[in-house]
């Protein structure tokens, strides 16, 4: 299987004690990869994958493009093919949940506003939070906010999903349904997390543990 995401001997530009050894990691097309590590490494890894954090050595190739070396406009174009959810999720507080999905689509160059709105409503319907669509992020419970943020990441059927600590507050039965929908909409994903989360392990095709001994593959079943 071809790699949608390939990291080779990557070291962050901001040197840290925790990330001292170069990191190599591949995410093949059609797989969901979970990397469990410390909060600091999880934070940095997610940002390096989207080109928001610079690297001092190695290469990060995302969807066939070296994300750290391309121009800002090329990066924006590449990111519009991806779905990203960082921690904190950063839903725009002055917009309703639905508009949080519509406005980014419009600024990313969608031809009109009606199609993104319909997609947003469809996604919210599937995720079971359609009743909250018109409310602002501050007016909905934390779990609905997190599902809404995940909805924003998957609404454009992204070729690659990058998630950092997703759905920490979502109950496991709901999370199970949400993950199933996410997998249908985004076939390839990488999730970085510092939480020991059984739901995350069960959704993973590949599970990596990254600690002081380095990055190593773990058996998904054993972890669950």
């Amino acid at each position: 299987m071809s790699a949608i995401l390939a990291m080779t001997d990557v070291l962050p530009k901001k040197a840290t004690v925790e990330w001292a050894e170069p990191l190599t990691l591949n995410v093949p097309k059609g797989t969901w990869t979970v990397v469990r590590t410390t909060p600091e490494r999880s934070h940095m890894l997610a940002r390096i994958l989207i080109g928001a954090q610079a690297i001092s050595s190695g290469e990060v190739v995302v969807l066939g493009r070296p994300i750290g070396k391309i121009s800002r406009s090329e990066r924006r174009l590449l990111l519009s093919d991806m779905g990203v959810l960082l921690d904190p999720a950063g839903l725009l507080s002055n917009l309703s949940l639905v508009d949080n999905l519509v406005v980014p689509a419009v600024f990313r160059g969608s031809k009109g506003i009606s199609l993104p709105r319909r997609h947003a409503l469809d996604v919210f319907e599937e995720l079971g939070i359609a009743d909250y669509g018109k409310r602002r992020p501050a007016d909905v419970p934390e779990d609905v906010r997190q599902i809404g943020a995940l909805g924003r990441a998957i609404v454009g059927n992204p070729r690659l999903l990058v998630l950092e600590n997703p759905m920490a507050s979502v109950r496991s039965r709901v999370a199970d349904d949400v993950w199933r929908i996410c997998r249908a909409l985004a076939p390839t994903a990488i999730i970085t997390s510092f939480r020991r989360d059984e739901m995350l392990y069960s959704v993973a095709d590949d599970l990596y543990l990254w600690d002081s001994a380095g990055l190593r593959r773990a058996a998904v079943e054993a972890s669950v």
Partner: protein
Amino acid sequence: MFVVDIVGGIGRRARTASTAGVVAVRLSGAVLRAGMSLPRAALGQWWGAFARQIQFTAWDALTLVSTLALLCGAIIIGEANAQAVRLGLADTIGRIVVAAGVREIAPALTALIVAGRTGTAIAAELASARALGEADALDALGIDVIQYYVLPRVLGVAVAAMALTLVFDFATLLGGLLTVQLLQQMSTAAYLESVRLALSVSDVYEAIGKGLLNGAGIALVSCVSGLTARRTATEVPRAVSRAMMWSSMVVIGVSALGIMLRVMS
């Protein structure tokens, strides 16, 4: 050691100030680029933000600015009239109110009001957006943060500050007229004639230019202050105070530029 510390401190401050200057210049270029590449579908959203900015900056501040300007005109005329009559220079009243009020005080005071109301609000909003991860999330979604946050604010505040400066100018002249009538030391016709002779079209252009420059500059430095804040809640008040300080420098800079251009021409 004490001297070294002082010199080091000055050096650090100079470096910070020059970095901020470079960031502001680069941001100006980025704002222009962002304006030219704005997606068509985003225009509706963008106009909404632009109109809200004008409403908040100009319309909501209209009463405050008009009242201040009336008082300002009254004070200038009240003070100048007393001196002018004593020195036998009553016919220079118009020149004084135009030179002091219209050319200098109106743009500067309007800009300081805009800095205090709008600049601080922009800095607080954007610093909060940084602290809550909203700016990072937009960037991660492939959205130009400058297009989304900075462009409507810079253009909106520039247009609003220009309009407010003209309102301030008009209200200053009106305040002067009311005071002249109240003091009864000069006829209304003589005051109006004196103002007409002193006021030229270039004064209006200058007010428009200063208003636009002040507004754009204040919005730009406030955006820089907000968007470069660190990601903690305690950074919000610091960003606000920084924005106010930089905005004051912008106002002084624009005033100085106006004087320089006038002297050169």
